[in-house]
């Protein structure tokens, strides 16, 4: 939980001599969420006064779970505040490992690539000599060899694709065939067939 809380208090601003009536409520709320006030690595004001009479404030606060590796690690960047009188805060919090890989390996259904993939797989499996498996070590080597056959066949006949909102292909092998038929013969029924396929 973080943001601009507009509360001045000596608990987080040593230059301010007073305490706020809202601090207790804020700490109670944070505690109920399992959070604690995270001190910045480079303490300082988070809002610069817009006149010479006032002092600078610390009113932007960060509450993080104390067990998170990001607790007490955030930084203030007064040089990046540009025309604003508020200082930007950089926070890096730990999360559970998440895989953001948006690629996958794919092979077209009922096409030549799929045929070649199955052919490569069957030929290599048939060529595998299982008569020599006499010992545990040879069995392990043969199993590894079998795994390599699957892996090599898969990666040499598939294409790496990126997942996007347009990933699902709508153009099928039937579309190609019916279009070719319509272009070659040009009959109305072939045109209708192509339309129904697409």
């Amino acid at each position, binding site marked *: *939980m*973080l*943001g*601009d*809380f*507009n*509360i001045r208090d000596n608990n987080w601003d040593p230059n301010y001599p007073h305490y706020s009536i*809202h601090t207790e*409520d*804020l700490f*109670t*709320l944070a505690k109920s*969420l399992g959070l604690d006030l995270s001190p910045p690595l480079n303490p300082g004001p988070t*809002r610069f006064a817009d006149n010479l009479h006032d002092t600078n404030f610390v009113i*932007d606060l*960060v509450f993080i779970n104390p067990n998170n*590796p*990001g607790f007490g690690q955030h930084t203030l960047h007064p040089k990046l*505040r*540009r*025309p*604003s*009188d*508020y*200082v*930007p*805060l*950089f*926070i*890096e*919090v*730990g*999360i*559970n*490992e*998440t*895989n*953001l*890989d*948006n690629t996958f390996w794919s092979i077209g259904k009922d096409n030549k690539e799929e045929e070649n993939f199955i052919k490569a797989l069957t030929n290599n499996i048939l060529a595998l000599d299982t008569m020599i498996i006499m010992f545990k070590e040879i069995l392990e080597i043969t199993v590894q060899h079998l795994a390599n056959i699957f892996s090599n066949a898969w990666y040499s006949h598939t294409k790496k694709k990126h997942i996007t909102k347009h990933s699902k292909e709508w153009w099928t092998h039937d579309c190609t065939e019916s279009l070719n038929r319509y272009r070659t013969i040009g009959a109305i029924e072939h045109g209708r067939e192509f339309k129904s396929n697409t």
Partner: protein
Amino acid sequence: MIKETLKIFSQNVRKNKTLMNVILENNKNTMDVILVQEPPKSLICRVPSHTNSLGEPIYGTPNYPDWTLFIRQDPIQENYARVATYVNKKLQKMRFTLRPDIIDHCNINILAFHSGQHINFVINVYSDNNQNALQFLN
């Protein structure tokens, strides 16, 4: 790509649209989430109205191609959101969602996201001088 940390940028931009655009452009390759307090709002269009001959004005906060904007919508101008959260589009797989079902307030944004099998929350707060957000949360 395996992600183990979430990089968050937070600043009160005091309704400055130019500053907002600069922040979004400069951090698009380095930050995951941008929390903004007092986001800018500008006139998007006017829609036909029975009560206003010029049309009812519709206001909005800047969108940006690399970021997904999460902001509470309210037709009443006085309740226009004072917090906005931008999530980098590279993190779409983490399924960030605004959760007004938990807290529905113009000064508070609660965002949920998935990391592994867990659901995490980011709370973006702007508590004005009357401490409306804090009172609401308590």
